[in-house]
């Protein structure tokens, strides 16, 4: 029987990936390190600021899982939640250098930077990316996008930097979210109410078919855990996807923005069908 991963909250997801009984939460809700910027803007804060950091073992090896809670502020990244992400990655890098190789798993259910903390959120996303780059040279950083919210904005850049990216069919990945594109470029460019069209472009099936994500899994705890274990087991590649600039540039060059291919044809256009 399938056991849904995405229906768990962020804490439940983080513990579910780790070996049973090995997880310990860092900087948890009782530390009460919440965002200081929300209450003055009439928004109720959450005690963990929507990011859950759990250290433990993954198939016997040291790992940290960082989960973003999509139910709180749409998984938006603020100053505190972003620094929790960045610091957890930095500490994993420090431990890895000190002889305790520690891989990281990011559960990326997020609309990107939290608007109420605009510039501070952007600054912390830069810190997250910087810490991710530091760690991925030493140990794998595996991203998981399970759905339905998806991973957008600044955090989609972090997703692009991951050693491996695991998605479900329900997951979505894009730099700008559908509503942002519609409001900036018009409904003719992108109709944010057309779910079939959105998933045909941003959805996990399309992202893995076209090689922008690596593994497509069902929304099931056991399936996602084994995909994560396999990804961590592959170790650090000689070259990450985001370093293959020439290859990515060639993909862009193969698409004519004035006459773009249909989503279903894109994998073939890119020779990845």
């Amino acid at each position, binding site marked *: 029987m399938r056991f849904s991963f995405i229906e768990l909250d962020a804490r439940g997801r983080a513990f579910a990936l780790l070996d049973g009984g090995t997880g310990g939460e860092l900087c948890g809700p009782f530390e009460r390190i919440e965002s200081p910027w929300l209450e003055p803007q009439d*928004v*109720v*804060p959450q005690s963990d600021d929507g990011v859950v950091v759990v250290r433990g073992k993954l198939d016997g090896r040291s790992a940290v899982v960082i989960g973003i809670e999509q139910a709180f502020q749409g998984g938006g990244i603020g100053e505190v939640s972003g620094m929790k992400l960045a610091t957890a990655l930095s500490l994993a890098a420090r431990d890895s250098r000190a002889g305790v190789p520690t891989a990281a798993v990011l559960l990326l259910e997020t609309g990107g930077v939290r608007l109420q903390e605009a510039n501070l959120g952007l600054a912390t996303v830069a810190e997250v990316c910087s810490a991710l780059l530091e760690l991925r040279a030493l140990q794998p950083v595996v991203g998981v996008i399970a759905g339905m919210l998806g991973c957008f904005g600044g955090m989609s850049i972090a997703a692009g930097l991951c050693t491996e990216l695991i998605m479900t069919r329900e997951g979505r990945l894009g730099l700008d979210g559908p509503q942002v594109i519609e409001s900036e470029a018009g409904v003719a460019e992108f109709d944010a109410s057309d779910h079939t069209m959105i998933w045909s472009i941003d959805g996990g099936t399309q992202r893995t078919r076209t090689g922008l994500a690596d593994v497509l899994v069902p929304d099931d705890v056991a399936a996602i855990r084994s995909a994560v274990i396999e990804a961590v087991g592959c170790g650090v590649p000689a070259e990450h996807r985001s370093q293959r600039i020439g290859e990515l540039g060639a993909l862009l060059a193969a698409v004519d923005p004035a006459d773009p291919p249909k989503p279903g044809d894109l994998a073939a256009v890119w020779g990845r069908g």
Partner: protein
Amino acid sequence: MQTLNFEFPADRPPARRAHVGVAGSGDLEVLMTPGPAGVARVRVRTSVDGFDTVWRVVLERFFARHRVAAGFELNDSGATPGVVTLRLRQAVEESMEEGSA
């Protein structure tokens, strides 16, 4: 957003602290910490203004039945009275379970 504070008589100290829920739409987060004897102290931060009386009635009813002497911090994002009561019960149950934080 509105902050409300309540106190209710209580005489049952919980075994340990408990954390349940998310401050997401229609839900709330509850942090429960063993507190001074004889009182349940509740701080509510809610996204919806003007429901002071409803909060008082819901909490009064809960603490009349579960006389848990603890501090309760509720971060609420528009949960209905039924959801509030369920989350409080869940927190009390978790505080009695073996091995939780």
